[in-house]
């Protein structure tokens, strides 16, 4: 004999879907800008079909049953794509939990015996709750993927090499200088030195939040590599609090040319290239 609830759901699938859509569309936070109502409907229908078709006497008491894996897969797909589209966890949560409301609503209409209604409702609640947990787990995984991708993108775009003057390169570094990033900075810098034939590189660390011994080691390595290419490397943007901290840490930067600001580094670079910046004389003064 088939479980009462399963029979009801199979018979009333349409009503469940209508109910579910009603609950979802009623939510004020519904993101119609992110997904059309038609898409939402077809997504909901697919999930509901899979759920009702898979529900059986064996698994209705067992939320961890392998028969639900297919549904959890669909949910995970929805959850991940929603995370990437920028849905909030609340909207994704409502998607799952309003299905519970819809199912319970139909059960309530169909089962007259309160005891039976309670027993069946509890089973459904347990299953949907376990779906909810899976959904949140995958939602967070989706978000983490976004974050990881952004981290990669940021470290790619945030290490530009700028030709500030003929023969002078500048590299503003913003953010944490970890091993992976140092590698990118160093490669970009060495390549630009060759391509532009520059003899001076200024590494500006105004945007680096902290210089610990690893960052310092990376900086020293970059300076040595630049020198091996026959160019000079100046480190600028060492703020007073960073200078103090570096000294306490015991890092020896005496072999490195350091400057407080990019401007003073540029001045030093001009000096090394025997260039001079002079104020333009006024027109009359020249003709005089």
């Amino acid at each position, binding site marked *: 004999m088939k479980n009462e609830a399963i029979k009801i759901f199979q018979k009333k699938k349409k009503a469940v879907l209508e109910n579910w859509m009603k609950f979802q569309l009623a939510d004020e936070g519904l993101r119609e800008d992110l997904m059309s109502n038609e898409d939402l409907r077809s997504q909901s229908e697919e999930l509901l079909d899979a759920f009702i078709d898979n529900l059986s006497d064996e698994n209705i008491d067992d939320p961890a049953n392998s028969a639900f894996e297919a549904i959890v897969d669909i949910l995970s797909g929805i959850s991940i794509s929603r995370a990437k589209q920028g849905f909030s966890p609340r909207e994704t949560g409502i998607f799952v939990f309003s299905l519970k409301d819809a199912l319970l609503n139909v059960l309530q209409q169909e089962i007259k015996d309160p005891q039976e209604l309670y027993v069946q409702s509890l089973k459904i609640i347990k299953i949907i709750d376990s779906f909810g947990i899976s959904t949140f787990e995958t939602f967070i995984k989706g978000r983490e993927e976004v974050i*990881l991708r952004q*981290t990669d993108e940021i470290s790619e775009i945030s290490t530009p090499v700028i030709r500030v003057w003929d023969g002078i390169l500048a590299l503003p570094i913003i953010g*944490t200088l*970890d091993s992976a990033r140092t590698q990118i900075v160093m490669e970009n810098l060495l390549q630009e030195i060759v391509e532009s034939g520059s003899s001076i590189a200024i590494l500006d660390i105004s945007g680096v*939040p*902290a*210089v*610990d*011994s*690893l960052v*310092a*080691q990376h900086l020293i390595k970059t300076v040595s590599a630049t020198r091996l290419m026959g160019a000079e490397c100046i480190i600028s943007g060492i703020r*007073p*609090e*960073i200078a*103090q*901290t570096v000294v*306490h*840490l*015991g*890092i020896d930067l005496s072999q490195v040319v350091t400057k407080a600001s990019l401007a003073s580094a540029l001045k030093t670079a001009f000096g090394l290239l025997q260039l001079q910046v002079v104020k333009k004389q006024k027109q009359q003064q020249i003709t005089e």
Partner: protein
Amino acid sequence: MVTLNRESMSIMREIDVIPFRNRLKEYAVKIGMSLVNQTKIITAASELARNMLKYANGGKVTIEVVSKGRENGIRMVFKDEGPGIPDIDKAMKDGFSTGKSLGLGLPGTKRLVSEFAITSEVGKGTTVIVTKWKNG
């Protein structure tokens, strides 16, 4: 010493260090720590977190806002279950490193903070406790 606030975070990957450092900065700003002391404690935290990652495959850090008399400060406990340090005296020397790095993390951290304590047991793990007073 009285603990006013306590928070734990696990440091298992390099990216876990960023939210930890941000949290630490928030606390340091909240108790009104000077910029120099903020930078010192953040740098110390960065050294100890990196050591946990590099030598012990990660660990746990607890940040506490503490107060003693009229002075507020931040106390951090770095606890890992890594291989431990066989000779702490040696590890505390400037330039000693088994990891081909500068060997300044532990001795440098000790110079950056107000109070520093390290315990380690080979095969069990390492715990480093540091405190930085607001004006210390």
